[in-house]
């Protein structure tokens, strides 16, 4: 579980956004509860920095 989460977060960090590609990988690989926490975390973080949020 943790490796898949780490892979998604690395991708988001490299691209500096949580866009379609990152979201697709997250949906495909993460359990729903992990996905929900991840979305919530980046929604707050990226919105504070005015970066793209899908």
């Amino acid at each position, binding site marked *: 579980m943790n490796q898949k989460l780490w892979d998604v977060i690395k991708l*988001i960090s490299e691209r500096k956004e949580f866009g379609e590609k990152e979201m697709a990988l997250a949906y495909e690989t993460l359990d729903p509860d992990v996905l929900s926490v991840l979305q919530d975390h980046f929604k707050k973080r990226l919105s504070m920095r005015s970066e793209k949020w899908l």
Partner: protein
Amino acid sequence: MAIIRTEESARNYLRQFLHNYLSSSGLNPEMQYFTIKLLHGKGKIYNEAESHFNWGEFSFYIGQLIGYEKNLAHQIGIAAGVELLVLASDIIDDLADGDYKGDIHKILGQSKALILANALLTESVSLLLTYSSVPPGKQLSNVINNLRDACNGQWSDLAFIIGETIPTEEDYFKLIDQKSVSFVRLIFGLYQSDQDPILEELATYIGFSGQLQNDVKDILSDESNDLIYKKATLPLIKAIDYSVEKDQGWLLRKLKKLDPNLANQKLLDEIRSYIRSTGAIDYCLVLAKLYIQRAKQLLTQYFPTEREYVENIINQLD
């Protein structure tokens, strides 16, 4: 049993109890004074910040949820024991980490800090054994076994650094299970002597989440020595993992240049900025939030009729 509904009430009961207990404890007045002073620090019971996690209060609410003990004064006595135990442990941690910038060194100095930690440990065990309704033999085993685990974890932690070998994420979680989860197990064991897999799982989630949040805070803070001593906390382990995969170990080369005897501010800032950019901080924070969410789910699922007690604990975890 009386339900204490607000954080303020539990906090006030605990403050009053500790004040009275210390006054009549027979401890040297100067030690009493420093104890109260340190209990005004961040996250401690006399701290005036409106909302913060406090181990004594958390323990009190756990007692209300799962404890056999129905006497409010006894519940507060146990929570006070936990508060003093945490303070003793914090003092020892600061001494072990060589954290000379923290309150404990500023206020006390090393010799007094050592003796005060010893005194607080004694007082806390006395309170836990006096006020717990778990049979004394079982209670003593709970306290001793979990403190021994925590000490073993802290001992291993001294050598848990980035050196020739790099600890893995699995190594990290094994260590914090011993070092941090044992303390939450101790709290649960104060109220219930029987092994309960749900409480074991709950302790694991709460312990993991708390340690992850501490490690994130410390690696980003100039007040902590974690980065300069290359402590193998999960944010650093994951950032190194990223660096080895993506840039032939840039981070490891920078870490080798860190010298605890030199001013390294520019290098520290550069390394912190890099760690953030890898996603390692986000990863640890997402895991911490996930564990707290799972703890909340367990609480609401397994204690459906104890809503008010569960809410008090969730408020603490939030």
